């Protein structure tokens, strides 16, 4: 038996790409890697497709792993070659190019865009927004003045809309729900976003239920069930994604919404790992980059035999539309899972179009929504992920790390002690905390009495 194990990876996207980076760093010579990718190209930064669509970046600029990288790490690239079957008993994958043996198999097939099954959904001119090909299709259609209808006012749909608008198209966004990005934004932030998009000339129609896509041999219009009809030269459907589980299901791997994995990213077959958007861990499937990277780290360790365990990742969202600063993280429903009202801190600056909302449970930050100024988003996300106790910094929490990490300020106002009087300068390191403690004691005493 060869000392070099054979590792086959199905899917050349961001999750597997990051996993390979970790793997080569930890054990550069342990595996001979064969990498299948449905797209005819290697790993690129898929979440940067929007700048490509808008023309602000080129494809070359978002390539993560080029041919030289794969060559340097001895990766056998089988890009554009679809895997059709996994034979677990023989430990082979079957593709157009034949059979490939594996000792360990990683499934990273990602997800597929969801297509609403309305009449006309398969007309030419109806695209999804998933990969470079979709992006290029939209770019190709983007003659100035051409009309684009985007179905789906979520993250991807709005990025697509903004990108096509930047290319001069007449863009309409149709959204089923009453406000845009309802999974990431609360109504206030959503309204600011809508205002911003409309200011850029993007038409927004919420509570829009598409009844049909019409056209004779080519898409021509989108009809809503309220009778509204939007003429369209291109329809981009961006209403959600589904984990790509067909191969796994066919191979009888345990699947729910995604391919079921344990904390080590192992599927029901211990020789096979799954990660990324196709995987389901602890009831959760993910469509954002942060959990994928966490999974990649764990998968790489599992492959090298190192202990590692994936735990649920809090997610954060940033809308990548130039000029629109929008960030959301964690859980910002107004009530907790038991239905109790959550505490919140809301910052509003209507003149400057800034809105921030922090959602707290007890002494912990559980959610954050920011619009117009997302500078501190990552820091809030960190507080959420660490389940940090924010009670001592709550007064200025919404002002982010500058306020939280600075030295305590003096609440001793005006009636300051005279200089050179150290006794009068002595005070608790956090007077607010000391006072709260005192108040709590007082309340406790009052309650007892």
């Amino acid at each position, binding site marked *: 038996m060869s000392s070099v194990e054979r590792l086959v990876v199905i899917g050349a996207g961001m999750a597997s790409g990051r996993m390979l980076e970790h793997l080569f760093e930890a054990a550069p010579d342990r595996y001979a890697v064969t990498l299948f990718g449905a797209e005819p190209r290697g790993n690129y930064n898929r979440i940067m497709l929007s700048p490509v669509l808008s023309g602000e970046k080129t494809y070359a600029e978002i390539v993560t792993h080029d041919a030289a990288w794969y060559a340097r790490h001895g990766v056998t690239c089988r890009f554009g070659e679809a895997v059709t079957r996994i034979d677990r008993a023989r430990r082979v994958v079957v593709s157009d190019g034949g059979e490939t043996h594996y000792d360990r198999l990683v499934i990273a097939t990602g997800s597929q865009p969801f297509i609403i099954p309305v009449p006309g959904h398969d007309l030419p001119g109806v695209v999804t927004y998933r990969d470079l090909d979709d992006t290029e299709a939209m770019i190709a259609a983007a003659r100035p003045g051409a009309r684009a209808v985007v179905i789906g006012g979520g993250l991807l749909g709005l990025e697509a809309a903004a990108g096509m608008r930047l290319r001069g198209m007449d863009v309409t966004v149709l959204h089923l729900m009453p406000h845009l990005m309802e999974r990431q934004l609360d109504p206030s932030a959503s309204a600011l976003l809508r205002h911003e998009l409309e200011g850029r000339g993007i038409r927004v129609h919420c509570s829009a239920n598409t009844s049909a896509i019409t056209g004779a041999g080519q898409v021509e219009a989108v009809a809503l069930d309220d009778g509204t009809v939007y003429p369209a030269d291109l329809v981009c459907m961006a209403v959600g994604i589904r984990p790509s589980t067909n191969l796994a299901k066919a191979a009888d791997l345990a699947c729910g919404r995604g391919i079921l994995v344990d904390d080590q990213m192992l599927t029901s077959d211990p020789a096979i790992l799954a990660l990324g958007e196709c995987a389901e861990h602890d009831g959760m499937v993910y469509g954002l980059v942060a959990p994928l990277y966490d999974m990649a780290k764990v998968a790489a360790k599992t492959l090298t035999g190192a202990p590692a365990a994936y735990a649920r990742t809090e997610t954060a969202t940033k809308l990548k539309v130039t000029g629109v600063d929008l960030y959301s993280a964690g859980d910002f429903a107004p009530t907790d899972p038991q239905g109790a009202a959550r505490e*919140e801190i809301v*910052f509003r600056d209507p003149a400057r179009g800034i809105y921030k909302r922090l959602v707290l449970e007890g002494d912990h930050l559980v959610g954050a929504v920011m619009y117009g100024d997302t500078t501190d988003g990552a820091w809030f996300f960190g507080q959420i992920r660490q389940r940090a106790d924010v009670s001592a910094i709550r007064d200025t929490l919404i002002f982010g790390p500058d306020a939280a990490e*600075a030295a305590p*300020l003096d609440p001793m106002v*005006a009636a300051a002690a005279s200089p050179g009087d150290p006794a009068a300068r002595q005070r608790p390191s956090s007077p607010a905390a000391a006072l709260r403690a005192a108040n709590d004691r007082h309340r406790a005493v009052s309650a007892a009495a």
Partner: protein
Amino acid sequence: MTAPAPPGCPVATACPYCGVGCGVLATPDGFGGAAIKGDPDHPANFGRLCSKGSALGETIDLEGRLLEPRINGAPAPWDDAISLVADRFRAAIAEHGPDSVAFYVSGQLLTEDYYAANKLMKGFIGTANIDTNSRLCMASTVVGHKRAFGADTVPGTYEDLEEADCVVLVGSNLAWCHPVLFQRLAAAKTARPGMKVVNIDPRRTATSALADLSLRLAPGSDVALFNYLLNQIEAEGAVDASFVEAHVTGFPEAMAEARRATLKRTAEITGLSPVEIEAFAQLWLRRERVVTVFSQGVNQSSAGVDKVNAILNCHLATGRIGRPGMGPFSVTGQPNAMGGREVGGLATTLACHLDLTVPEHREGVRTFWNAPAMPQGNGLKAVDLFRASADGRIKALWIMSTNPAVSLPEADDVAAAIAACPFVVVSDIIADTDTTRLADVLLPATGWGEKSGTVTNSERRISRQRPFLPAPGQARPDWRIIADVGAAMGWPEAFAWESEAAVFREHAALSGVASSLGGDFDISGLKHLGDAEYDALDPVQWPVPHHGEPGGRLFGEGGFATPDGRARMLPLVHRAPATPLSPEWPFRLNTGRVRDHWHTMTRTAKSARLSAHMAEPYLEIHPDDAAAAGIEPATLVSVESPFATAVLRAIVTDRTPRGSVFAPMHWTAITAARGRIDALVGAETDPLSGQPESKAQPVRLSPFRPAWYGFALSRRAPLPTTAYWAEARGPAHWRVELAGTAQPADWVAFARTLFDLPGTVEAVSVIDSARPVARIAFVVDGRTEALLLTSDAPVEAARAPLAEAFDAGAEARPMLSGRPAGNRPDPGPIVCSCHGIGANTIAAAIAAEGLSTVEAIGAALGAGTACGSCRPEIATLLQAFQPEIAAE
């Protein structure tokens, strides 16, 4: 009358604040302001000025000034106002007799004003119901001086403090209350380190720093301490037998009492250790040149007169009086407390240190004034005067240049008493004070910089206050207003002065009459001053029996103003403060001044600089007492007496002794919700002087637990209505400390009302749904108009930088955070958007931590570890900021 000075020409005048009486050079700028500096030629200060004096230029603007007469709130012509005042006073006198009217005047008045008021009341209306706010600060000294010296005379000069080998400060926070005199003392001690300073005060104050020995005695125990000193003076053979023999009576009686003051007993009463007491006695006895400076800690006491005499006893027994570097030295609180005493503007004096109760004195003055009616005895002293007003005996009351609704003890009752009086006239320079709010007629007086006259400082030095600004609006000098009323009441000849110089000449002439009756106050050498000479009068120390021969030290060779020319020593017995502490009222409330505010702040509160020092009423409380009462630093404390309750900011400090708390006296209903400290003080008075015991009120304390605390800045005058608030002026803003007992339902609406802003002004807000934490800024055209920060604890904010940023027009957001400048360097343009890490931060890390790879930067900062899009930029930064490696 002297014309205001042309712009650019310095005018020598005198400071209107404390009794040091510093000379000021004011150079008007031609736009209503003036540059202020100390007068290098004035013998009180030789060019020095304190913080308040230096900021005088910030207090002379016309904002808030009363600029026209008002009757029942409506502007009225002078003639109508004068007629109404004259008619109502005449009617009251006709119906109820002269004792049914009263004046309550002020040590802020100039001597000429004071003289006119005193003459009108005592010589023409015919009652002695004229008292003054000097009753609150100097009355005990007046009586003490008269008991010992036969006249209200300060024997020494300021040089004595510099020439002494031991300066004892009793009940005097000289550093804050008489700062220039303190500076002179400090300079002298620096020049002559052998000089000793003793500070006798229950508190540790700014003055304590200069002291070689600080005696933190029990409140009110001064008589016991000085009786012991007198006992030791005799025991150690320090009695100046020849001086006593020649110039003193009462020595045996005084000694008989003093001999009872054993060390043990003195230690028990004063709470001082025997070692401390002995050290004090030795310092006093081993040096002949001893000056004992005393002020409100002595005077404002139910045993104030005895305290004064206990000090005087020691100086008389040792003959240490009226000689260089020796003597008792009363320092007065007000710029013209001494001038008021000289004209006799108290209910218990007549004029020129003469006595109402002495028939020859009355007759001499009556003749001089050609007075139709003279009172036969003393009038109502301040506390009694307002009690008489409360019970309806006073039918017409005229208050001049003072704010008794704030400053008198039981001030709530005083305010009610003023309100109860059928006819109240207030002359003032400020339109809205706690007292003007209660007046039927308001008369606009000229203020400092506009008025002309003389003042007398603590060392008997008469200085000219000269005008350098025109009288604003319809404001008139007080003496003129009084003269107009006197004329309208039917005595035009007696009040026909054409100028303040004419008033002064009459006063000087009367002092000659007084001198002939045995009085000590004699400035008759100045009675023939021409107007120009008066204008040019240099500071001059009385007595001035002959022009050009000013007086110096007094009593060094005896010559006291008693009938037998001998001073009196008195047997004195320690009396504790009038109201004892009890389990119900366990703390002594001491009150006093802060460094940068004056009285009820009608002027100093205009100055941003002065308001920055202590912008809020506060309570000093000892850490042990605070802990026992559950009072945390910077929280609010409720201070309760049987008369009223105040809410103050707690300063937890051992500056104040256990069992005693201290609060400043300056805050009013204009500047704070519940800071009127004299409302808490009971009107216990010294039985002889009638001076209230302002520093010993028993009180109790409890934490004031508001639902929320707040801090606000506003460009326009805020309208706070919360349970607690205190406001202060900044350069271009008001700052307010707030606390509320209930959380507003709508913070933005609450703030809009607080700042008096219309609904059209947009708010930037942070609202916490679960706690009373709100941060609201109102922005108009990008400029923040008002800012409110609240919390469930005292608001943590960088107040000074905030105020500075606010005035500079900073953006709302950083101000809302309470840290307009932040505490961290600017992160620079954001490179890693995922983690919000800027180029400056990365560059700094590269330099500081020697990072050489993108990975290392990621490991250190997190930059580039999420989406990775920024890694090329980080690499670029690495090239730019990595230290160059030297080429081979």
